[in-house]
């Protein structure tokens, strides 16, 4: 079989909705695209713990604290599922970590915004996790088996993240005027960055067409963004706070909300490293990694010591 036959056989499998598994043949670009996308997703889970970790010790009640703690633990777990899925493509964990720390690999820009008040925990759960879920549900049917399986697990666990966020917003909105103002302020700051999570407009999205052909991506950025807006607008109405977009309006004819223009200059600036917290986030990651070095070394030494003891015992017998 020549390479063209192998490639068309691969595409045929994808068109028939047959999953691709780690040891199956795959085009190098498919492999590289997945390594980039899944590792970026993993890094986002890991860096995503930082803005929320900031509030664990200051949660307003024990109920809120255990929920936030559980959410952050889930994010650590989700990062690990995704790193494992990436490693099935033939890249080592250390290399992935190195790519994050050197800035070669990206993570979701949303985590480069600061969490200034408790209401930000509400807005993040409601909007950021809401957007993440919309992005992730179609990935449960992604053509690459290990990624799809990780996404099934993640989606199951993540629905509580969105709900606990909305509950925080709902409680604040039913509270004092100052609490409601805090919720409004959080919505004002997180709304546009959340919409940017779906990536550039379809016309400017370089990877969309190929990713759709390969069954990695099932919906376009603009489709998902519209879904997000249609989902959130009535939820904001319920809360009684206002989405910071004067152009947001129900369009009867389209059956969707119309909305205003996203500030794409801001989007690209944050992607390129000039967001409010890019440096702080990466520094915190690198510090955690370096501070943990002695623990990794000690565990390795202990494992080697135990291994030696077993061998010595066996020899004695």
């Amino acid at each position, binding site marked *: 079989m020549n390479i063209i036959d192998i490639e068309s056989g691969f595409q045929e499998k994808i068109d028939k909705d047959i999953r691709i598994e780690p040891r*199956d043949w795959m085009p190098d670009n498919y492999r590289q695209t997945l390594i980039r996308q899944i590792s970026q997703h993993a890094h986002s889970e890991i860096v995503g713990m930082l803005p929320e970790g900031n509030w664990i010790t200051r949660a307003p009640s024990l109920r809120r604290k255990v929920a936030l703690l559980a959410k952050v*633990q889930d994010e650590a777990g989700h990062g690990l599922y995704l790193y*494992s899925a990436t490693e099935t493509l033939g890249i080592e964990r250390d290399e992935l970590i190195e790519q994050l720390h050197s800035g070669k690999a990206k993570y979701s820009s949303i985590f480069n915004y600061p969490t200034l008040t408790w209401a930000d925990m509400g807005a993040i759960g409601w909007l950021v996790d809401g957007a993440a879920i919309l992005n992730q549900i179609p990935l449960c049917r992604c053509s690459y088996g290990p990624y799809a399986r990780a996404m099934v697990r993640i989606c199951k666990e993540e629905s509580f993240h969105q709900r606990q966020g909305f509950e925080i917003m709902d409680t604040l909105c039913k509270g004092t005027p100052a609490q409601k103002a805090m919720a409004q302020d959080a919505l004002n700051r997180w709304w546009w960055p959340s919409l940017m999570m779906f990536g550039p407009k379809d016309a400017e999205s370089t990877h969309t067409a190929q990713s759709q052909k390969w069954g990695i991506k099932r919906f376009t950025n603009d489709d998902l963004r519209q879904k997000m807006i249609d989902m959130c607008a009535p939820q904001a109405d319920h809360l009684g706070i206002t989405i910071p977009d004067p152009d947001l309006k129900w369009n009867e004819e389209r059956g969707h909300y119309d909305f205003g223009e996203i500030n794409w200059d801001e989007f690209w600036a944050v992607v390129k490293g000039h967001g409010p917290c890019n440096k702080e986030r990466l520094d915190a990651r690198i510090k955690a990694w370096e501070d943990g070095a002695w623990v*990794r070394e000690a565990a390795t030494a202990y494992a080697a010591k135990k291994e030696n003891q077993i061998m010595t015992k066996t020899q004695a017998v």
Partner: protein
Amino acid sequence: MKSWPLYEVFIRSKAGLHHKHAGSLHAADPEMAIENARDVYCRRNEGNSIWVVLSSDITASNPAENEELFDPAEDKIYRHPTFYEVPEGVKHL
């Protein structure tokens, strides 16, 4: 420093069922792999038993040889009960 080896994790969701592959993780030794598997794959009562095995100890079949390996079973329909005729009216077959 050499990174910790990769372990494959298998979890039994409840007594009476098979252990099922859940994913993989890095750990310094098997004990740590089990502890980590508890935190990574069992945060919501997903299991009551965990197996871990070094990924490098698994021997896997080669998908390129799937034809030789699996095709022989394909034309043996007589291995299934539906291949056989059951006379009308006969029960418990």
